[in-house]
């Protein structure tokens, strides 16, 4: 039953998790803006979301030719998106690659995305409630 609700909520539930993860990464970048040798990190949101969405339904199953073969779980990777290093435009002399303005812009964009996802999820849940109560 929970699986059906997952299907109903679609990609938004995974998007919310990813956006929360990205908020954390950007918060760490902003906190380390003056740390020598700190390298700014981020994730490729589009690729990570495509990976999470693909792992849910579209992943091809492994072919098991023997009863003891394990079935690979493609969905396991979706909770742990690949972290990338930001390519610095103007690296500092102390080896820090955090661009304060860029991180602030990314943080603002990400929080708007998070709120958009919340709004969409809220709409889905409300329509589910309407269906349940029949009003």
């Amino acid at each position, binding site marked *: 039953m929970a699986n059906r609700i997952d299907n109903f909520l679609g990609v938004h539930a995974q998007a919310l998790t990813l956006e929360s993860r990205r908020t954390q990464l950007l918060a760490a970048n*902003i906190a380390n803006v003056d*740390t020598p040798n700190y390298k700014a990190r981020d994730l490729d949101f589009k690729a990570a979301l495509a990976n999470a969405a693909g792992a849910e339904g579209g992943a091809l199953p492994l072919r098991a030719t023997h009863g003891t073969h394990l079935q690979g779980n493609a969905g396991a990777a979706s909770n742990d998106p690949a972290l990338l290093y930001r390519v610095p435009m103007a690296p500092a002399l102390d080896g820090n690659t955090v661009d304060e303005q860029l991180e602030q812009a990314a943080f603002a964009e990400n929080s708007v995305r998070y709120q958009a996802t919340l709004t969409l*999820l809220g709409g889905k849940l409300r329509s589910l*409630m309407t269906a349940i109560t029949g009003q």
Partner: protein
Amino acid sequence: MSSFKIFDIAGSGMSAQSVRLNTVASNLANADSVSSTPQGVYRARHPVFRANLPAPGDNSSAGVSVAGIAESKAAPETRYDPGNPLADAQGYVYAPSVNVVEEMTDMISASRSYQNNVEVLSTTRDLMLATLKLGQ
């Protein structure tokens, strides 16, 4: 719950920046504290930041901490001031080599970074409160 880590990260940033503000205040306050010997003179202090990197394999993000406070190695300034009660036999006093302009810019930079961390904290709090209201 991974979202709560954001509060730790932004909090560590705020704490590190406030240590930096503290050292700036100390340096500015002691900019004119003269001494009778070159050894006893105040030395400008600056914090050294270090990222709290997670263990390898742990995919969580890093906060920041103060690894230590470094004292400036710049030679003290020698001033000829025979009227000063702290002057040595030759009439010299030794003043710390605190660069006031440098300290002021450091203060502005620290306060901007502090504000950034506060902004992260308050945005995250708003988002989490909105998440709690999901479906209502």
